[in-house]
């Protein structure tokens, strides 16, 4: 397990996140995407339309370093800003078939290496960061 219960609850409330990958010339690329937390593997699984044809998918295959953020603004104050950023290494994988048939079964799977949060756990408001090792999430060959 890589994310705390509070982090998982925060993610589950948000419909979309934003993924940054790095292109061949070192320029980042950033897009809004749907996602799920894979509690079995401890990974973030990212879904999209025509995923395997996308630049982000090609980027990940060439350079696995990614950053993903889920955020929410509940008030125009410091206390009203909430975000969870996950930096990690991604692999491409095949997920379960989307029942609506709209999304590609090809996914980007992020193994978290560093988790940074701000006002995510109501019991511990403010900033928090921690590192994790490859053993915290499970690689599937």
């Amino acid at each position: 397990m890589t994310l705390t219960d509070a982090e998982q609850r925060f993610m589950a409330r948000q419909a979309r996140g934003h993924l940054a990958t790095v292109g061949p010339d070192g320029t980042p690329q950033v897009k809004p995407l749907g996602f799920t937390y894979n509690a079995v593997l401890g990974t973030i699984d990212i879904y999209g339309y025509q995923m395997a044809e996308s630049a982000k998918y090609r980027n990940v295959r060439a350079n696995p370093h990614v950053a993903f953020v889920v955020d929410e603004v509940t008030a125009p104050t410091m206390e009203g800003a909430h975000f969870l950023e996950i930096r990690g290494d991604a692999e491409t994988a095949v997920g379960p078939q989307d029942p609506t048939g709209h999304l590609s079964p090809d996914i980007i799977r992020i193994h978290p290496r560093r988790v940074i949060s701000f006002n995510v756990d109501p019991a511990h408001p403010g900033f928090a960061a921690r590192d994790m090792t490859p053993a915290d999430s499970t690689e599937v060959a």
Partner: protein
Amino acid sequence: MSAFTDAEIEFLNSQRLGRLATVGADDMPHIAPVAVFYDPEADVLVIGANVEFGEAVMVKSKKFRDAQRRPKVAVVIDVPSPRVLEVRGVAETHLDGGEEVSSRLGAPFRFAPAWISIRPRRIVAMGINGAAFETSARDVA
């Protein structure tokens, strides 16, 4: 002539929230929610942070330090309809002048002294210049 189309400028002016991707010294990307403004005089995007969150809120941030070291960045502004405007470009970091910039751009809050401008190099738009889901991508410099 602007690097942006009229529809893109109208979209930029209708939104405040974007997500900025930078790349760190360790080659890991970083992604953060930010306030994005269009500067019609310089034809650049401007990222400013609310000075109420502290004078050093921008200059001490990871995104600012990353952009100082590696100016290749990307920012995306999007709404779920979906309309997506992604701008990849070259960032310039400014240590002061933020207050003047925020007042010149009519920003709803006063910027901290440090701010970032982004000169577009590639613009990727979906659902903005044409029909829903219609995507366009072009190099602008």
